[in-house]
């Protein structure tokens, strides 16, 4: 799965665009484990007017992003979610954390460059903690 974090968004929208998030909410809330585009369309049409091709394109994009699996069923595809909503959010949280600190990239750096933290770096980290304390206090 490859994602770009969307600044200013929360929950699953951190990683999914608006319609993608709506579709995944439908999939998870209706517990659709194997579904065709038409089933999602039927659910969405209860809430708003939307074209079949729009839903089909978005579902295909979710598959490209690795959120959905799919298998061919005659002339159509049957899709299934790779993760539960909780697993997806968990994964998102770690991705956000990784983004914030360089995460896996930072870990990978250990290979080539191990540098002891200097007093200045430790001071800067302590300063961050103090700020967080103040934010939580206020």
């Amino acid at each position: 799965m490859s994602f770009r974090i969307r600044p200013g968004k929360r929950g699953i929208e951190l990683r999914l665009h608006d319609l993608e998030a709506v579709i995944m909410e439908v999939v998870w809330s209706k517990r659709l484990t194997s579904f065709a585009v038409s089933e999602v369309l039927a659910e969405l049409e209860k809430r708003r007017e939307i074209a079949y091709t729009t839903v089909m394109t978005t579902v295909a994009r979710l598959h490209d992003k690795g959120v959905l699996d799919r298998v061919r069923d005659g002339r159509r595809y049957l899709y299934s979610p790779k993760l539960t909503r909780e697993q997806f959010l968990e994964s998102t949280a770690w991705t956000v954390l990784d983004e914030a600190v360089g995460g896996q990239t930072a870990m990978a750096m250990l290979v080539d460059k191990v540098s002891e933290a200097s007093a200045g770096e430790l001071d800067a980290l302590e300063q961050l903690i103090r700020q967080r304390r103040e934010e939580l206090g206020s």
Partner: protein
Amino acid sequence: MTEAAFPILGAAFVLMCVLPLCSLLAKGVLWQLEQGERGGALHELDLRYAVLTSASVLPVVWFLSSGLHQVWSGGSALACLLDHGASEECVETAFFLLALIGLTALLAWPAWREHVAPPTASPDVNRALSDRLESIFTSHPALEDLRGRVRATCAPDFAIGTHGLFRPRVFVGTAFAARISDEMLASALGHESEHVRSLDPLRYVVLRATQAVNPLGRLLLAPHVARWHAAREAHCDREAVIRGSSPLPLAEAILQAARPSVREQVALGARDAVVLTFRVRMLMAFSERQPSRCCDTGPAVGQGVLLILVLAIVLPGQIGSTVLDTLHAGSEHAVHYFVR
């Protein structure tokens, strides 16, 4: 000369060729595991540890078991029959076993010796720490497991660390303890209690030993070992918070332990700038959102590893010692080829 070929060349071949090849295989598996999305950097820690150590342990166990089966059963020893005639007693396999055990022990020994606990402080100093710990244990029931397992040490520059392979104890440097608050000490003990619970000193020593017996493989696996170590320390931070330690005091204790005056490497984990930043940021995130365990496959991995280890011990006796015989014959033919 020929009789010495198998014990010496065979053992060297296992350590210098078979183990690195297995390490290459392990590197591929680790690379795949480290790409895992769920759990991020802390993904599949137990499985990664099993792969890191198995690359050295399994081949050595296989050859030892194969040799033992052959010696006990007086079995195949096909190479002996072919090369020395049936009348001669074939003892090369026994010498091969001795050489393999000897070389492995020789290479692994420094890793075991490195694990030395710091000297315990005098009873008076210990009593002073005990009084402080008593109030911490009372207010933090999750740390109850550590009661009777914490020692003070006056070793210079020692912060806090867990020592002891089968019955780990937490050692707290008196100077370090004096610098930090009770809340920081309680959180640091929470981190160490996960090391105690998981027998991490034993895990670390076994990992170092398996790397030591496999010098070429160590070069291949070094990045993965470094990542595993860093992730393991972060895992202990997360476990500490899940069990009730406060994340921000723990982050502060980690930074105190990493101060240049403290030289103890096991003090609350690494002193590497990148890893420290990662852990502190992670703990800051935990101050907003309680962490949860993710991707914990520990028991399943343990059972899987046990099964594979049993197979490595039992299989050579069941399927015969073809691999060992090939190594035996190959060593002797190589000597013939180069010496004639």
